[in-house]
């Protein structure tokens, strides 16, 4: 009974329900999160059960949503904010970067801001402009924020509750094209550390490191490569700030090769940070330069072009081949 098979979105919904039940200070805030249950129904039924005082439909003003969430956190609440889509977070970017991220340091530790900002991110659902972006590096670059992304239902359930319990502000990126993927959730399990990477598949020839929506692609790539006799190890990083470099290092010391995969543009992306750090840590173990697979330095394209833009199986396997060719 403790193990349920849930779509990722439903796992998030159950996680929020648990958080609202457990702690009366937890609040849900955002546009359309009440009666509608969010445009992806992640908050479905929560306002009905917990009331308008706990699940708050807000005006359409992202800076206002985050700014008032900061004020509520200062008053002792733990707001969980929904930003409707990745590309809509920018009106709130100032509040997140100049206030939310820095107030703990500014107050010499006197103020804690346990605010979670949920952002459905990434492409692959045929959406219009501003609905498919992957801005995680913009947040990971800012000290004071923690940035995480689940790739499956179990992590969705547990990581969100861990984020809500954290006294630090957490940017919680939800891989929207995985919302409908089902996975097992053990609601009685004891979750592992929030920022620890996980080895999804072991292998000996090359390490693939990914997070969020690209973990599934990498698992599929590893299965395809296995048919060609190549042994790929797949890591789900789970956290982009901090990054669990120890787990990546251990894997790369074994395989000697690393390919980092994400949807975000490669240029200045999280892959660049991982490549640089792992090159420092594993220089004498590396058989090839760390390669990156990701989006192009271009605006996210119209939906009819996203198949070309998003890293798919073939682009990951091409990078694997290039790495092995060294």
């Amino acid at each position, binding site marked *: 009974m403790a193990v349920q098979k849930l779509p990722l979105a439903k796992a998030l919904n159950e996680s929020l329900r648990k958080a609202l039940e457990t702690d009366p200070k937890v609040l849900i805030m955002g546009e359309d999160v009440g009666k509608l249950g969010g445009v992806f129904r992640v908050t479905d039924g929560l306002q009905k059960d917990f009331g308008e005082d706990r699940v708050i439909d807000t005006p359409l003003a992202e800076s*206002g949503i985050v700014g008032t969430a*900061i*004020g509520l956190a200062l008053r002792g609440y733990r707001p969980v904010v929904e930003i409707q889509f990745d590309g809509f977070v920018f009106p709130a970017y100032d509040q997140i970067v100049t206030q939310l991220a820095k107030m*703990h340091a500014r107050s010499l530790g006197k103020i804690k801001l346990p605010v979670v900002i949920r952002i459905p991110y990434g492409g692959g659902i045929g959406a219009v402009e501003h609905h498919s972006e992957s801005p995680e590096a913009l947040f990971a670059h800012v000290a004071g924020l923690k940035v995480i992304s689940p790739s499956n239902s179990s992590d969705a359930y547990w990581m969100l509750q861990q984020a809500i319990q954290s006294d*630090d502000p957490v940017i919680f990126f939800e891989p929207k094209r995985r919302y409908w993927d089902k996975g097992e959730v053990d609601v009685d399990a004891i979750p592992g550390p929030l*920022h620890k990477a996980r080895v999804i598949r072991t292998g000996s020839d090359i390490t693939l490191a990914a997070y969020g929506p690209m973990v599934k692609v990498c698992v599929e790539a590893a299965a395809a490569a296995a048919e060609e006799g190549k042994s790929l190890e797949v890591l789900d990083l789970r956290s982009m700030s901090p990054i669990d470099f120890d787990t990546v290092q251990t894997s790369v010391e074994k395989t000697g090769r690393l390919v980092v995969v994400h949807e975000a543009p490669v240029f200045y992306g999280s892959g660049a940070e991982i490549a640089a750090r792992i090159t420092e840590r594993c220089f004498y173990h590396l058989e090839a330069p760390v390669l990156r697979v990701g989006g192009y330095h271009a605006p996210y394209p119209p939906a009819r072009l996203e198949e070309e833009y998003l890293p798919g199986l073939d682009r990951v396997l091409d990078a694997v081949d290039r790495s092995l060719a060294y």
Partner: protein
Amino acid sequence: MTVESTAARKPRRSTKRVSAAKKPQSSEPQLVQLLTPEGERVEHPEYEIDLTPDELRGLYRDMVLTRRFDAEATALQRQGELGLWASLLGQEAAQIGSGRALRDDDYVFPTYREHGVAWCRGVDPTNLLGMFRGVNHGGWDPNTNNFHLYTIVIGSQTLHATGYAMGVAKDGADSAVIAYFGDGASSQGDVAESFTFSAVYNAPVVFFCQNNQWAISEPTEKQTRVPLYQRAQGYGFPGVRVDGNDVLACLAVTRSALERARRGEGPTLVEAFTYRMGAHTTSDDPTKYRADEERQAWEAKDPILRLRTYLENAGHADEAFFTSLDEESETLGKRVREAVRAMPDPDHLAIFENVYADGHALVDEERAQFIAYQASFAEEGN
């Protein structure tokens, strides 16, 4: 009657447009005033105040000491002890009047110039200087005096105040929240959004705008085409313009707005019409953008002088009071001066402290690297 040519009419029209753009506030609204610039007590039908001579002297003392503190900080900046200072000179009445209207359980969200409000809250003035000296980003615990840290990004704190007020309402508490900002901040989206949120959620918050006429070099005319207090109407809550150099009116109007918030009737916008007599900060040069005559005209409305006139004429204060206050001012100045000079630089490792509440692997790693790097010099020295 002569027929004007088109050519003759055109410039007249354009002149009219230009003058309309320059003077949107041509019909100056009535200020709430209880003490004229000449120091005469006047009545207002909506805002009454009845203070004892002791309370009146208290307000005067607050304003004088705040001005003295501010002058000392300006001097310390000139002496190189502070990197920057944002003077409140001229805004003492707005800050002391509103600050003394607050109850202990009310919460204040200041911008970075509310030294007088901080004084009213009991924040030690020397604590305000740490950020200007560059030893911290705000050296007090906001919850000790219910006085939040200074916020430098213009208007951000109005949303924090609104959210906090939403929390107060959720808690069923009867305290109120006040957010300070300036005429320049009134142009910011965050201020507009805080008006929206506070109105929608009926939050117990008072927006206290000190319209000091200048946002660095930009006059209020560059921020608005209507008197600022009238903005509130569009959001569905009252706005009032008060003489910001009249401490009694500021006290009465703020008190009334706070009581309204406590009664669950939602936000109020108070526009304190005042004047920044000094520079925006010590980095600024107001002689480049405003006329001497303007400052002189406002000097005649000085908030401290007018209360002194009233105290003297009404026989509420004698020479001994003023002499004693002068001595107290000097003592404060000396204390501030000594405190700033004695303020130690923070420990080097403070860079890595309080970045996160729950810790962060990268911060730990970089702290360790920093310590090792610093230690390498010590080894070289040995």
